[in-house]
C-alpha cells in the first residue's frame, strides 16, 4: 500500500522546467538469470526463465524474445516428490490455446503468438500446489545455478466485497472502486495480493479482461493491521499488454454494470517483500526522490521471485 510515490513523481513534474533525451554510456555486465516462478493451490508450478540485458539493448521483438531461456533444467520439489519440469514452447501450442497460455503464465499473448517463447511446467500433474506445503526450486541454465524456496500459505477469505462510487468524481455516477472487508488472522506475518477480472462482455463481445489483473502496489502485509477487521479498496489495474484504445476517463475505475471477480491471494512475507520492492523499482526508474533499489529477490544466484499462492474468490456486481 505504497501511496507516497505518486507524490514524488508529481514533485518532479511540478519542478522540472525542461528535459532532453541524452545518451548514457553504461558499463556492460554479465547477464543474470531472472526467475518468474509461481505455484498455486491446485495447479502445477510455472517457471518463466529470462536473462537480464543491457538497459539500452535493442528493443525489437527478436531482441526481447531472445531473453527467454530455452533448454534449462528446472526442478521443483515439495520434499517428497521431486519433479523436473517440462519445457513448453509457444510454437508447440495451437493458436486457439495461446490466450489461455498467456492467462496462465502472465505473458503477452501477442509475444507468444509471434515468437517461440518457452516456459517450464509440469505437464504430468505430478506436483500440484497444496496449502501449507514448502516447495524448493532448482534452475540450471547458461552455466549458472539458481535456487529458491517458497511456501503456499493458507488462504484468507475476505469477509465481504462491494462496489462504491468514487468520491473524487462527484459528478459521475458510474465509476468507482471495489471495496472489501478483511479480518486479518491474529498472527503476524500475513501478506496478501489483490487481483480482479471483469467477466462481463466488452465491446468486442468477449470478457472485458482476459485474465486477472493486479493493480499497481497490489500487495500488502499485516504489520499495521494484524488481527484487525478493516475496509480497503483497490482501483482497477492496467492490462500491461492492452492496446491503447481504452477510454481514458474510465482508466483505473470499475464501472456500474461490470461483473468483477476478485481473487484475493495469500503469499509469504519474503514474496511480499519482493513484489513490494519490485513495484517501487518499477515506479522509480532512477528518479532522484528515492534511493535507487533493486527488487529484493528470494532467488539465490539470480533475480526474480519464486512464489506460492493460495486464493479466495469473490464476485461483485457493480451497482451504484
Amino acid at each position, binding site marked *: 500500500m505504497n501511496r507516497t510515490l505518486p507524490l514524488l513523481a508529481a514533485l518532479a513534474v511540478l519542478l522540472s522546467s525542461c*528535459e532532453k533525451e541524452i545518451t548514457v554510456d553504461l558499463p556492460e555486465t554479465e547477464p543474470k538469470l531472472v526467475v518468474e516462478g509461481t505455484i498455486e493451490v491446485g495447479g502445477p508450478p510455472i517457471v518463466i526463465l529470462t536473462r537480464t540485458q543491457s538497459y539500452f539493448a535493442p528493443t525489437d521483438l527478436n531482441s526481447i524474445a531472445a531473453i527467454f531461456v530455452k533448454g534449462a533444467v528446472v526442478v521443483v520439489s515439495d520434499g517428497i516428490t521431486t519433479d523436473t519440469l517440462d519445457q513448453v514452447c509457444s510454437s508447440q501450442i495451437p493458436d486457439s490455446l495461446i490466450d489461455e497460455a498467456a492467462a496462465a503464465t502472465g505473458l503477452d499473448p*501477442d509475444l507468444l503468438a509471434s515468437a517461440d517463447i518457452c516456459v517450464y511446467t509440469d505437464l504430468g500433474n505430478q506436483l500440484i500446489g497444496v496449502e501449507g506445503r514448502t516447495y524448493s526450486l532448482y534452475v540450471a541454465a547458461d552455466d549458472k545455478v539458481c535456487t529458491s524456496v517458497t511456501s503456499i500459505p493458507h488462504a484468507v477469505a475476505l469477509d465481504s466485497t462491494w462496489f462504491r462510487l468514487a468520491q473524487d468524481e462527484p459528478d459521475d455516477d458510474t465509476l468507482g472502486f471495489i471495496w472489501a472487508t478483511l479480518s486479518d488472522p491474529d498472527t503476524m506475518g500475513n501478506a496478501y495480493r489483490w487481483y480482479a477480472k471483469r467477466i462481463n462482455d466488452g465491446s468486442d463481445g468477449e470478457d472485458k479482461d482476459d485474465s486477472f489483473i493486479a493493480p499497481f502496489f497490489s500487495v500488502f502485509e499485516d504489520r499495521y493491521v494484524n488481527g484487525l477487521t478493516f475496509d480497503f479498496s483497490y*482501483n482497477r489495474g492496467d492490462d500491461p499488454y492492452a492496446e491503447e484504445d481504452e477510454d481514458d476517463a474510465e482508466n483505473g475505475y470499475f464501472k456500474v454494470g461490470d461483473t468483477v471477480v476478485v481473487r484475493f491471494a495469500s503469499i509469504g512475507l519474503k514474496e511480499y517483500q519482493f513484489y513490494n520492492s519490485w513495484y517501487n523499482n518499477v515506479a522509480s526508474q532512477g528518479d*532522484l526522490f528515492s534511493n535507487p533499489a533493486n527488487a529484493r529477490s528470494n532467488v539465490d544466484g539470480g533475480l526474480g521471485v519464486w512464489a506460492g499462492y493460495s486464493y479466495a474468490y469473490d464476485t461483485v456486481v457493480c451497482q451504484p
Partner: protein
Amino acid sequence: MFPEDEWGVKLVVGAWRNGANNGSNGVFTPDDPGNFARRQQPMLRHLRHLLALLLLLVASRTVRAQERFTISGYITDSASGEALIGASVFVQEISKGVPANVYGFYSITLDPGTYTLQVRYLGYRDIVRRVDLRSDTKLNFDMVDAATVIREAEVVGRKGKGNTESTDMGRVDVDVQKLRTLPAVFGEVDVLKVVQLIPGVKTNGEGNSGLYVRGGGPDQNLILLDDATVYNASHLFGFFSVFNADAVKNLELYKGGMPAQYGGRVSSVLDITMKEGNDQGFHGQGGIGLISSRLTLEGPLVKDRSSFIVSGRRTYIDVLTKPFLKEGSGFAGSGYYFYDLNAKANYRVSDKDRLYLSGYFGRDVFDFKGPDPGDPTFRIPWGNATVSARWNHVFGPKLFMNATATYSDYDFAFQGGQDGFNFSLISGIRDFGLKVDLAQYASVRHNLKYGGQYINHLYTPSTVVVESGDVAFNIDEPSKLRAHEGALYVQDEFEATDRLLVNAGLRLTTFAHVGSYTEYLVNDQGLTTGTREYAAGDRIASYTALEPRLSARWKLDKSSSIKASFNRGQQYVHLASFSSVALPTDVWIPSGANVKPLIGTQYAAGYFRDFADRMFETSVEVYYKDMYNLIEYAEGVQPQDNGNANYDANLVFGDGYSYGAELFVKKRTGRLNGWVGYTWSKTMRIFPDINGGEEFPSRWDRRHDLSVVVGYDLSKRWQFGAVFVYATGQAVTLPVNRYWIEGQLVSEYTERNGYRMAPYHRLDLSATLNNRDTKEVKDPTTGEVKEVPRKWHSSWTFAVYNAYNRMNPYFIYFDSEGVPSQGNFQVVAKQVSLFSILPSITWNFRF
C-alpha cells in the same frame, strides 16, 4: 554601495580559534573507532583532567596579570546601536590587536603607559584614541559608517589583522548586508548560497542550499541561529535557506579547525547572528521580489537601552508551481508556500548586564492533488521554531560571560488521503538547552575561553497513522526517544612567540539515550515477538569522549604564514535520508545502543600569503578527514517501513573519508573585487551492506569545483556582480540492466553512484541601481538650492541566473513505453534541468 573591501566575505581577523590540547590520555586511537568506543573512560576522570588544565591556565594568568590594567568595552554602530562583530582594537605601540566578540565586547590588558588605540571595522571610519592607562578603563566606541560620510564610491582600504595573522583555518565570515549586489536565483538573496562559493563547500545539485563541507553530510553541520540549533535549514526541498537576509547580521562558517567552544557536529559550524534592532530610531526595510516579499521593522523600546526587530518573509502562493498547473491539468488545488518570522529584543540592564530574547518561526506547506482518477491528495507541512534567551554579564574588565537558554523544534508531517484511506507520517525533534560561555581576556598574548552546555533532546522518529474508513490501523504510538547531551570545554589562544600562535582546546562530551522507551524484540525472521519497556530515566546507552582541538600559525614573514590544525569530534545525532535530495522526510535520530556516535577527525595544513599590501589574499589548504559510524537506510527502505519497528531497524552503518586541496585568491580592495576559489577533492563511503561492501563515491563527491565571484563598483549608483561556477558532474546511481517481471520493465542497479552526470557550470550576472540618496531642496528665503539626504532609500537589483542558459543536469531518469510485441517498445534516458535562464528584478527599500 559596493563594499570597497571584501565583498561580503572575508577571512576573518585574529579571532579565537578552535583548539586542541593534544594531551592524549591514551583513550584515542584514531584509526580504530570501535576500540575507541569500547575504551571510553569514566567521565569523572576526563573531568579531572579538564579542571586541572583549567586551573593551570587561570592561575598562570593571575600571577602574570599583576600591575597591568585592562581596557574594555563595547564597539557599536553609531546609527543603529548594533554590535560590530569582529571590529578590532589595535594598539599601535605594541602592534597587537583584539577583536570584538559577537556581542561587540572587547578587552585588552596592557602594562601601564600611554597608548594609541586604533579601532577598525570594515566599511567604517577608523577611530584613533590616545589612552593614558593608569587603571582599568572602560571605553565604548561608536563607529560611523563610511558610506554616510564619503560621497563618492571611494575606496577605503581597511587593514586589520587578517589572512596570515590568525590561526584561522577554514573560517569564513559573511557580512550579510553586503550580499545584495550578488546575483541570486529569483532575486532571493540567500546567505547559504554565498557560503557555497567558498572552496571546500559543495552543493548537492541545482538550487540546493544544503552545505556539504569537506566531504561531510548535511547533518554534520552545526547550524546555530542566536545559539539555538536549526535542524532543517531549508525551504522548498532545499531551494532556499530559512535565513531571511534582512534579519541576519552575521554568519560565521568553520569548515575545519572547529574551536572547542563548538561541538556536537563533526564537519562544520555555521553560527548565525540575528540583528539586534536599532536602538536610536525607528527604521524599516524590505523588498519585493519575484517570488517573495519581505518587511523588517526595528526601533528602540527605550532609547539607548532597549530595542527590537521584527522581520517577516512570505512567498507568493503558487508562483513557483502555477506555470505547471495549467487549467485542466488536474493538478489544480496543488500549491506551495513558505514563510519566516524573526523577532528579537534586547535590554541593557546596566553597563555590565544585557539581556537578549530572540525567536525564529518558519513553515513550509505543500499541497498536492494528482491529475489522475484515484490519485491521492497530500498536505505536507513542516518547519522550525527556535527561541533563545541570553544574558551577557561582564564580571570584570577581563571576564565576559554569556549564558543562554535555547529551545529548538523541527517537525514534519505528511498527510495523505485517497478515497476513504488516510495516511499520515510525522517526525520531529525538540531540544531544550542551557549553555554558559566565559571569555577571559588574560593578556594580549592569551585569550581563554571555557564553558559548559547541556541539551535535553526529544526525538519523534517517523510515526505512521493509517485509517481506512473508521478503522484506525494498529500502529503503535512509536516510542519517543529521549536523550541528554552535555559538554565542558576549555580553549586558549596564545602567542607562544612572535611567530607562533597556538589555539589549543579540549572538549569533553557525553551523551545518554534514556527511557522511557519501548524496544521491540524481533525474531530472526524480522517479526516482532514482544517489547521491552525502559522506565523514565533508565539508561539505554551512553557515550563519553574527550575531543582535542588544535591549530597553530607559524609566521614566515610579514605577509606569509603556514598553519596547521587537527580536530576530532563526536556527533550524537544523525540524519537518516530516504532520497538523494534533501527532503523533509529525512529523520533525525539519536545515537543509541546500535547507532554509535559519528566520529570525525580532520587534519589540515595551509600556506597563506598576502600581496600588494593586502590587496590580494591567497591561500592553499590541504585536508584529510575520516568519518566513522555514518548511517544510511538499507537499500529499498521506504518511510512507512519505520512503523512498529525500532528506530534503528532499517539502518546500515559505514565509514567515509575525504581529502582535498583548496586554492583561494581574493582581491580585497578596489573597484573591482572578488575572489576565485578552486577545490580538488575526493569523498568516498564504505558500507558493508551497500554496493556489495565496495567503496563508492558519496553523492557530493566532486573532483573539481571552481567558483569565481567578481564585483565592480562603477559609481555610487551602479554596481555590478558576476558569479561563475563549475563542478564535476554529480555521482548518481543508474540502472545498468533491464529485465521483465509480469510484463513490467524492471531496472537492475549494480554500482552505487557509479555514473557521473554532465558537469555543472553556470554564469550569473547582476546590476544594482541605487536611487539617489539626496534630493535638492530650495531654501525658501535665500533661494539657495541645497542637497539634503533622503530618509527613504531604495534600489533595484536586476539579475540573470544562468545567463548563457546552460541546461545543467538535475537528475536523469530512464523512461520506457510501449509493448515489445506491438513493435512500439522503446527505452530512453532523459535528463531533467531545473532552471533555464532566469531573469529577475528585486526592489529593496529602507528608511
